[in-house]
């Protein structure tokens, strides 16, 4: 009851601001051209133009969604330390530009598949904060009914295929999704995401060979945050130019901290994949947190390095500067937006905390799918031993 009073009070406070923003968010679509921070580097293909078409609406949406993602990950950090999230929790803060830029370039018909650093990509694909926090805390309302956890977020209706614990294994899956898209003539593409660590998995090259052989619309995106857990990329890969490792497959190296560069590259890649087959994208990005919550993140890199990247290349700061430079919103308005986001995240956490744990009977559901209408009873045919097909 106190909660509902609190939430009603918060909406009363935030209403004037949200109406002010809705003025910006909904109407202004006059095109703005933005230059990407760095040029693209290409391997066996042309580079896309550095000028990206955008609008104030898009800029503000970028800022808002990235701030939401950042806030969500930091809140997940606190929840983990409070032991409400258990197991492994891999946080995406610092890498938001990749998720946002990619979403801006594609539709929900296109598929995305990634490994375990999937919270923000799930959000970008249309997942709600409530589903995220419920799943992280193992509640019924989670996107996988609480049975998946941090590493198993899926959203079938918007083409998000997970969420996989074993890195590298999602690459053949993603190529399979691309195969199905080609088989069914969907005119859609699949973005198969993996990290610099998983880039050394053999199955990646096997899958890339097949994708190139049959011209499948697969785009392999290497989110190069330069560390495979504790191992720096130069210690794990003889050739750290991940965009070139496709050999006969064209590749593009992108500044992954610049959302517009990501958007441009993904648009380019989608067009390429639909016409000519697979392409490799390397997103040069960085994660502020350690590999997961069990990793402090400072034993293999210096704090100066982390704070240096945060000062010079932070994706949200970049968008903020662009917003201010183009006079789309004032500093104060952006700060208020951030406060509103903070409240939104806190409300979602509170709502998720209230959500019940899954029923014990849920242990046996979704192991098999019922088909043929047969049920397997125990030997006496009276007791259903398990929910078998």
């Amino acid at each position: 009851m106190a909660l509902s009073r609190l939430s009603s009070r918060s909406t009363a406070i935030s209403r004037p601001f949200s109406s002010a923003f809705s003025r910006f968010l909904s109407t202004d679509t006059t095109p703005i051209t933005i230059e990407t921070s760095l040029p693209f580097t290409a391997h066996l293909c042309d580079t896309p133009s550095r000028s990206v078409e955008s609008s104030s609406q898009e800029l503000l949406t970028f800022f808002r969604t990235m701030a939401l993602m950042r806030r969500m990950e930091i809140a997940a950090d606190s929840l983990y330390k409070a032991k409400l999230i258990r197991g492994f929790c891999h946080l995406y803060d610092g890498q938001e530009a990749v998720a946002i830029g990619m979403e801006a370039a594609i539709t929900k018909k296109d598929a995305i598949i990634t490994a375990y650093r999937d919270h923000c990509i799930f959000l970008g694909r249309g997942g709600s904060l409530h589903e995220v926090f419920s799943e992280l805390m193992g509640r019924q309302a989670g996107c996988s009914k609480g049975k998946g956890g941090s590493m198993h977020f899926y959203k079938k209706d918007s083409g998000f295929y997970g969420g996989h614990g074993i890195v590298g294994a999602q690459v053949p899956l993603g190529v399979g999704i691309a195969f199905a898209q080609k088989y069914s003539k969907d005119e859609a593409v699949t973005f198969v995401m993996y990290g610099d660590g998983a880039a050394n998995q053999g199955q990646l090259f096997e899958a890339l060979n097949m994708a190139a052989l049959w011209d499948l619309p697969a785009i392999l995106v290497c989110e190069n945050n330069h560390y495979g857990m504790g191992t720096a990329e130069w210690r794990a890969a003889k050739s750290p130019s991940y965009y070139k490792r496709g050999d006969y497959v064209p590749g593009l190296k992108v500044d992954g901290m610049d959302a517009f560069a990501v958007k441009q590259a993904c648009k380019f890649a989608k067009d390429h994949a639909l016409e000519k087959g697979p392409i490799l994208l390397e997103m040069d990005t960085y994660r502020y947190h350690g590999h997961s919550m069990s990793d402090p993140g400072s034993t293999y890199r210096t704090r100066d390095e982390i704070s240096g990247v945060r000062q010079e290349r932070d994706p949200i700061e970049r968008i903020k500067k662009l917003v201010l430079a183009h006079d789309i919103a004032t500093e104060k308005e952006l700060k208020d937006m951030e406060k509103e986001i903070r409240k939104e995240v806190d409300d979602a956490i509170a709502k998720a905390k209230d959500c019940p744990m899954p029923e014990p009977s849920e242990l046996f559901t979704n192991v098999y799918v019922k088909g043929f209408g047969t049920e397997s009873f125990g030997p006496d045919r009276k007791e259903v031993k398990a929910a078998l097909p």
Partner: protein
Amino acid sequence: MSAILQGAGAATSLSPFNSIDSNKLVPPSRSSLSVRSKRYIVAESNVIKSFGSGLITRRSKPLIANAVATKRENAASSTSSKPGHELLLFEALQEGLEEEMDRDPHVCVMGEDVGHYGGSYKVTKGLADKFGDLRVLDTPICENAFTGMGIGAAMTGLRPVIEGMNMGFLLLAFNQISNNCGMLHYTSGGQFTIPVVIRGPGGVGRQLGAEHSQRLESYFQSIPGIQMVACSTPYNAKGLMKAAIRSENPVILFEHVLLYNLKESIPDEEYICNLEEAEMVRPGEHITILTYSRMRYHVMQAAKTLVNKGYDPEVIDIRSLKPFDLYTIGNSVKKTHRVLIVEECMRTGGIGASLTAAINENFHDYLDAPVMCLSSQDVPTPYAGTLEEWTVVQPAQIVTAVEHLCQ
């Protein structure tokens, strides 16, 4: 070959198990692909009454597929005059696969040399010419990746039939089969189904060497979320292949290298075998012998000797390796009170080991003697013919074991 005819005769009393509208089983298809709806018969191996009463019991309403249309003049006569057609086991598999591919455009095949070459055991012969190179896909040699690819395609709604040229090669794809194939339905909270069929020949062949004579059912049996079936006759090969393709769950269909050339007469009409059911090969009173795949024939050979010696063994081909059909097995144990398991898996951690545990747990009170399990030796299969013969269970050992148990 009387063993085969005996098997065929015993298991062919069919009654329509569940006439379900096949449309309900088809996943929502994209507008470009649609499924022809057909009714079908699910075959139940129920031998209590009609041991030799013919192949099909027909219902009054027409349930049938194309074959009957040409035989309309026989409709009035009893079904025992239905001729059926004779074919080899690999042809039965091919027929089942082809029928399913005709019926549902989502079904596709992928594997090494399945397309232009026609399949290393000719199971996919002619399919690439009929359905095209994309639907019958020749993959490079990368089991891990193409199994993963099949699973990824299944997540979107396709129904791939993934062939491992030899079951042993699928060890390379273990991660995909265990983590993605088996678990995705559960970890996604039911959002994704993985209707793949993973099939291939396994088992000890004729001096193929250690790495090509593996029995993978023991490794896969604890993966949650998958079903495993083993076919042993052309009849159940076709039926299980069709059922596996139609099932929404991932099914691993174990074939045996030495059984591909078995000949049998199978019905012309469309039929499906129940995936979770065991097959009663020979009803008896004295002892229950549980077996599957190639060992079924060793058991039947031993059964001839046993019958001459005055024993009456009940032979059940368990067919469903995961989950076990404890209903059929239980009824048999309650009748005979003695169990012998004959399998080709290794002794340690094999299907027989799990089955022994399951029977002891559920039917302990009905047993007059401990469950005995004859398995292959815990050794890599040697090349030399005589040694290879002794790694697997031979009929003479089965006879001795039965005599020992029935004392």
